[in-house]
């Protein structure tokens, strides 16, 4: 004889609980957290580095780098800018989850920071399903990926706060209908903020930076050492 047991639980419940704890930890320390997702090579590391260079004096960032392989290439680039960077090796997993981010946050001195940037694994499909506990979910699209992606993969762009369209310096060379692309994004995301940028020329970064700065909570600044 078998017996029926009702469960009705979301399968990723455990992840969501830990994500909520991560968010509470960031809030407690007045740190704004962002989760940067994109296909491989769309420009996550480039956008993060350009953002770090443009941060006003007194705004301190820490970066968590997710990589499927134990390579520290991206983390080394960030460290070279003088920003604390933590490398998380996902040992082959195609996305970061809240537990990995919890470990990363433990290695950052959150008391000293205003901004925590997480570079997710280069994969456009599944990182979006895993809440990390950040305040903003951001996808970086790039011109060479083509303008039909939102129509083919609608689920990827749901639940986003910001879309950064990178590599606009390549627009003269590639057929990319910006209106068509952004309309596809807005279908399930009418309130999304869209910024078009180029890491190569620096074009468009002002808008993104002022949005980001408007989100960073006020915090008593510790004196520069």
């Amino acid at each position, binding site marked *: *004889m*078998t*017996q*029926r*047991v*009702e*469960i*009705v*639980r*979301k*399968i*990723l*419940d*455990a*992840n969501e609980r830990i994500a909520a704890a991560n968010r509470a930890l960031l809030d407690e320390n007045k740190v704004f957290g962002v989760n940067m997702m994109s296909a491989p090579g769309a420009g996550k590391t480039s956008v993060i580095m350009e953002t770090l260079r443009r941060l006003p004096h007194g705004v301190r960032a820490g970066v968590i780098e997710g990589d499927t392989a134990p390579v520290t290439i991206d983390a080394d680039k960030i460290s070279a800018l003088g920003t604390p960077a933590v490398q998380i090796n996902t040992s082959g*997993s*195609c*996305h970061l*989850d809240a537990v990995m981010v919890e470990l990363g946050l433990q290695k950052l001195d959150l008391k000293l920071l205003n901004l925590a940037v997480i570079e997710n694994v280069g*994969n456009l*499909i*599944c990182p979006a*399903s*895993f809440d990390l506990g950040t305040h903003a979910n951001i996808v970086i699209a790039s011109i060479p990926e083509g303008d039909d992606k*939102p*129509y*083919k993969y*609608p*689920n990827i762009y*749901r639940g986003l706060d910001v879309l950064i369209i990178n590599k606009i310096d390549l627009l003269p060379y590639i057929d990319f209908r910006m209106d068509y692309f952004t*309309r*596809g994004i*807005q*279908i*399930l995301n*009418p309130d999304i903020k869209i910024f078009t940028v180029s890491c190569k020329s620096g074009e468009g970064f002002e808008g993104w930076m002022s949005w980001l700065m408007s989100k960073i909570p006020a915090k008593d600044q510790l004196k520069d050492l």
Partner: protein
Amino acid sequence: MHELAVTESILELANQAASENGASRVTEIFLTIGQLSSIVADSVQFYWDHISKGTPSEGAILHFERVPARLHCKDCGESYQLSEELLPCPACGSIALEIISGEELQIDHIEIMKEKDDTTG
């Protein structure tokens, strides 16, 4: 894409429910998986057969209820089922849409078997 992580969560939830209910075995698991969750049932089944071995859930049958994605148009009120490709409202062309269903990714109930003990029958 991340079917392994999903399958591990299913296993954990099922084994936990079994031990909370004093069951020695889980025989069936009923899951609801929405079209927009991008989970492939066949992959879940594949991982399941491997990772459930040696646990109370070994051999449990997975039942998948797949839920199609349905959208509702905020402008004209039309409801329609999403095909593979995302399209504006077929009735009025609006892009002000909301998702009614298709995001589900949950375990609904399981069937467990208890060890026969002396007090019963």
